[in-house]
């Protein structure tokens, strides 16, 4: 049996799914299937597998991310393991020291856990609700936009710009986030819009 080929065909068009089903689809006979299951029963039987991409450099290595029911937060999935995607034509299963440690990034102590707010002149952050943060940001932005939005320049040309507000757009975000960022920023009239392409 050409295991490589059948695995590839099965995976074509299927990025996420229960890993357990992968085994059945590989076309093993019963004996082989039982044998295969016995080799890696835990990861394959109890985890969900999602195809993802390394967040770091632009090789954009394919990753397989395994998640399982969280023990600390019942009902939630928790990421338990990451490995290189062997089917990905560029990285073929490999990950470098950065990508191999990506699990530590997901569960990093330095992750921002809640919205945090720092008052003018304060020397610490305080925890706030999302609603407080978003309402306050929207208000600050509207006030500034009302003060500084320019509808027409000195020649009377319609220019619809707001030059006192800036947005730095992240280059690790998805294309879809990128487009929503563009739309929101330009919709508000921003010209100060940049990403990491220059730096």
């Amino acid at each position, binding site marked *: 049996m050409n295991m490589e080929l059948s695995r590839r065909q099965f995976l074509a068009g299927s*990025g996420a799914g229960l890993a357990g089903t992968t085994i059945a689809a590989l076309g093993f006979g019963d004996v082989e299937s039982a044998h295969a299951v016995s080799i890696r029963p835990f990861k394959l039987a109890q985890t969900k597998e999602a195809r993802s991409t390394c967040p770091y450099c632009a090789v954009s290595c394919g990753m397989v991310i395994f998640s399982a029911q969280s023990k600390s937060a019942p009902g939630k999935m928790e990421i338990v393991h990451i490995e290189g995607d062997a089917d990905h034509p560029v990285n073929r299963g490999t990950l470098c020291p950065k990508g191999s440690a990506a699990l530590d990034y997901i569960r990093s102590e330095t992750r921002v856990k809640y*919205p945090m707010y720092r008052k003018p002149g304060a020397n610490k952050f305080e925890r706030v609700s999302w609603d407080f943060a978003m309402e306050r940001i929207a208000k600050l932005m509207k006030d500034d936009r009302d003060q500084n939005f320019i509808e027409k320049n000195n020649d009377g040309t319609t220019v619809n710009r707001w030059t006192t*507000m800036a947005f730095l757009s992240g*280059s690790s975000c998805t*294309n879809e986030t*990128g487009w929503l960022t563009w739309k929101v920023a330009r919709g508000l009239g921003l*010209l100060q819009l940049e990403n990491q392409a220059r730096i």
Partner: protein
Amino acid sequence: MTNSWTDIKNADVVWIMGGNAAEAHPCGFKWVTEAKAERGAKLMVVDPRFTRSAAVADHYSPIRPGTDIAFLSGVVNYLLSNDKIHKEYVRNYTNAAYIVKEGYAFNEGLFSGYNEANRSYDRSSWEYEIGPDGFAVRDLTLENPRSVYQLMKQHFSVYTPETVERITGSPKDKFLKVADWVASTATGDRAMTIMYALGWTQHSHGAQNIRTAAMIQLLCGNIGVPGGGINALRGHSNVQGITDIGTLTASLPGYLAMPTDSEPTLESHLGKRTFKPLQANQTSYWQNYRKFYVSFLKGMYGEKATKENEFGYNWLPKLDVAYDCLRMFETMYQGKTNGLICQGFNPLMSIAHTKKSIAGLSKLKFLVSIDPIETDTARFWENHGEYNDVDPAKIQTEVFMLPCASFAEEEGSLTNSSRCVSWKWAAAEPYHESWRDADFLADLFLRIRKLYEKDGGKGIEPLMAVDWSYKDPLHPHAEEVLKELNGKALVDLKDGEGKVTRAAGQQLASFAEMRDDGSTDGVQWIYTGVFGPNGNLAQRRDNSDPSGMNVYGSWGFAWPANRRILYNRASADPDGKPWSEAKKYVFWDGAKWTGADIPDYVPTLPPSRGAGPFIMNPEGVSRLFARGMMAEGPFPVHYEPFEAPVANPLFPKIKGNPVARVFKGDMEVFGTAKEFPIVATTYRLVEHFHYWTKGVHANAVIQPEFFVEISEELAREKGITRGGWVRVWSNRGAVKGKAVVTKRLKPLKIDGKTVHTVGMPLNYGFIGEAKKASPINTLTPPVGDANSQTPEFKAFLVDIEPISGPVA
């Protein structure tokens, strides 16, 4: 990349310069190893440091930081003066045969049209002679003294191997070996790939570094062929995609342009961009600009965009000036910016001249950071001793630090540096209280709109005009958004005979279907096809390679039109026959173009029509002579970095790049070689990604702290011991760290003088799990490339001294 990661396997020579793929792009570097192991490819590395890429190279040459153009121009001169070029390729596929009009000149390091007062050029003399038929004049014998070919020979003749050595410090024999290996690929049956990254871009003449490399590739016939190309390895995982989308001050999605004040109407914007062919029968694909622009506007404003209101053109903000990130921080520094949102961005670490950045951030009324991990920027107001010595009480900025889902907690598409758009699936719900970026943007936008609906205010019309008709407006779904990027038919599209070719509401299969009358939408024309009538092709995961040439055409979707190698028609000769069996890729089979890839050409246009392979250019050929496209001139020139250890050996009166922008007050922050005799450069470590993984435990453990890499010679000269503490300072500030004394750096002889280089990793700061350090950009100068404004991080001046370390 013009080519792709996997295509590197087809190379016969691999040249890494201005990058260090073995450490910065390890899993992509694997394809270099494959090319070496499987086809005996030769790897050469030119770098100031003997990097890990150099360690596995077949040939290594050192170079002084910031002198790449002199080195590369030396190679151009070698190819031209020894006639080691791919003549037929050069004659037919470049503008070598084009005649440059009278008035163009180059004297004393400057081109015709220089205006010293405003540090810029009138570029009108950098043009072709136009014949009575309206087309550019050519001399296919290449003998006319004003042909690009002859002008080039003359222009580059000063870059002899001796001059190259004098400027760059690369020993003549090492330089000549590089030139010789390059020349070995100018044959049509061998190919060389050039791989570069920020080591070429982060200079005040970065764009010209890359252009010079591209010229070498054109002279050798290495563009459009398997194993060739000019390949930017790039930084962030989706920096290609985000650049394609165009979240850059002057950009629209798909490399269209933002309107400016001098373009009050849609027609005035489009009229400047007609891209009429400069030669008979050329494709000049940008002629379709207006179709892409109108389809974009239809996507942005939906039904509100009508013919009567110029499809909403005037709702777009118009540019008064380009606010690249250096100008952004300058504007902030001047107190003219009140709010800043950082989305997965840590500018305090990544912008030049940290002191100025801190002062700028402190003038903001509010700062919003949305990031999965804590950034130094979000805590810029916090005192971290010598690493961030600020007084919080004096900083009045309101700061919001918002938790964002990590890469693994959301789905969507990414575009790697091979231009391949592929999908990722979410592995879990967002951790903690984090939100997805999309949800943050939707919430913010709709909240602001609601405030305007309730209270009124300025600029309501353009704000309300934006189409936001997502199924769940607060949570736009990634597939919905990708469809929007792709575009669809808004009415039944018909061909000339009235037959419906695309029914209303259907997704478009190709940007060739886009129209300029408002009957199609699609905000990102180059991606059209990714989510066409056959569904989401970014999700394709078929890794078959039918041609056996490492072309994975059914994996994801490479823009444009799923092409894996750009300009691939150039892999065949003018008659459409492959240049060689070894490099057979896309060719004419008598009825159509066919081969291992989607032709980057009209598929049924016969070779006899004579349309060139560079279909985006109105000439149909590539440009050895850049016309007016580059700020500093149509040919590259060696200019020193703004901080250089010697005066420009060729043009001693010229300091730095004569057209690079320097803000008022910034000229004074440059240091001189007298005070700061040592060249400094920055680099990345294999264990860290930018300023990000210092907040990740495993990475912080394996590479815990900042250091300064110096040569044994410099250590001896300064009395610095291995592992001893040093202070490094420039005219802008100082950093401290342990000295790593290596053989990887060597002093070089430059114009008769011994010059030392120190190297420093940039990955450290004052927030995270790694040991605290002062930001590396405390040292770097606030000047950028004249075309892209990429800061000059790779070559500046410092001094160094041993100090006693901190008391433990």
